[in-house]
């Protein structure tokens, strides 16, 4: 089976083209965005990159608090920061 050359996801409604195998956390960094704001209003982004620190949580296809460093991008995926 051949892999598609590129995938398209949306981040806060804005389309982004990424290579297959890209994690959602990496895609958000490519887009130059932060993942979320902490409860005290600080901006947060990926830290450990291995699913331990929970800093990179975002909403993926409507499910909040998804650890985006552990999820690979799929075509049509809807990602929301700060959710």
């Amino acid at each position, binding site marked *: 089976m051949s892999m598609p050359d590129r995938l398209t996801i949306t981040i806060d409604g804005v389309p982004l083209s990424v290579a297959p195998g890209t994690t959602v956390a990496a895609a958000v960094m490519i887009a130059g965005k932060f993942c979320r704001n902490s409860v005290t209003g600080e901006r947060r982004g990926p830290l450990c990159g291995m699913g331990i620190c929970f800093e990179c*949580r975002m909403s993926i296809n409507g*499910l*909040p*608090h998804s650890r985006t460093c552990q999820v690979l991008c799929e075509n049509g995926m809807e990602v929301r920061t700060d959710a």
Partner: protein
Amino acid sequence: MSTSTYDVLIVGAGIVGAACADACAREGMRVAVVDGDIVGGGTTAAGMGHIVVMDDSEAQFALTRYSQRLWQELRPELPDDVEYEQCGTIWVSADEEQMSEVRRKQAYYTSRGVPVQILDPSDLERLEPNLRKGMAGGLLVPEDGVLYPPCAARFLLERAQSRGVRTFIGRPVVRMGNGMVRLIDGEQFSAGVLVNAAGSLAPALTPGTDVKKRKGHLVITDRYPGFLRHQLVELGYLKSAHSLTSDSVAFNVQPRRTGQILIGSSRQYGADHKEVDTEIMVRMLRRAEEYMPGLAKLSAIRTWTGFRAATPDKVPLIGPWPEDKTLFLATGHEGLGITTSLGTARLLVDQIVGREPEIAAEPYLPSRVGKEHVHA
């Protein structure tokens, strides 16, 4: 070492001890509170903080209803971090058989002046869209609420301190009785009245107190605002709470102000170790998932256990201990100590000063246990 003297000395700085200290101080008594650990660090910290009217027995109803009214009166004074929310309880009925229990409960509450509303399946779906479809209905009790117990205990104790109550925290007690309390470090206190409010540890200080540890597990999720709006309890809950021998689980979930969801509940006798029991926690979560399938996708961030102070008849022990005329008990609140702490404190103070209480004190007297020592 010298001996300090008080009118009332309370052992236990959980929510019951804190409420008793506050109520005694209001009467102008000289009060001290002693606890071997931290304020509200035992069963108080482990519970959900459901402020709920229960109808397991007339005695349980009277004390929970009286206490809920006291919480509502206190509400304007509660600091924000107590997180008091009058979210209401919905008793969820899974099938037609349980709907007859809904109707019985409705008649019971209504005849005693507690507002309730029967919900049909569409009401239930509108109020709690994440419940599994196809439930038979439920009973909404809108005046029930939730709070954050450790902060409530701290508030009550601080208010007591502002009225002159002395506190000795982190000072384990080795002995109490005959008007004396002795700490592990050798310090002694004397008092006209001693109150054992040590929760599930009460029998260690007052042998013969018929209180057993009943272990429970809770799980808390990350923040999912709007996922859950009321405290939801399955109607089979009483069956679970009643069982005196076997381990049991029941669907019981609570929305916190943060959007987090507390997931319970489990009951175990004879499990005296604090560690999480994976088998029963899995059973508890499966039960919750049966009622709310969407819970399975949420992220749980912490789980813990605690010990309820359970009596054989599910009614707390409030009043004089027959074998020591200086000693009063305020323990045995099982899973209702957060709710009933305020009513307990009033009953205790009324008995100490010899005043007629607002609700009958007899059902809660420790002397009842010796009289009819029956384990159903």
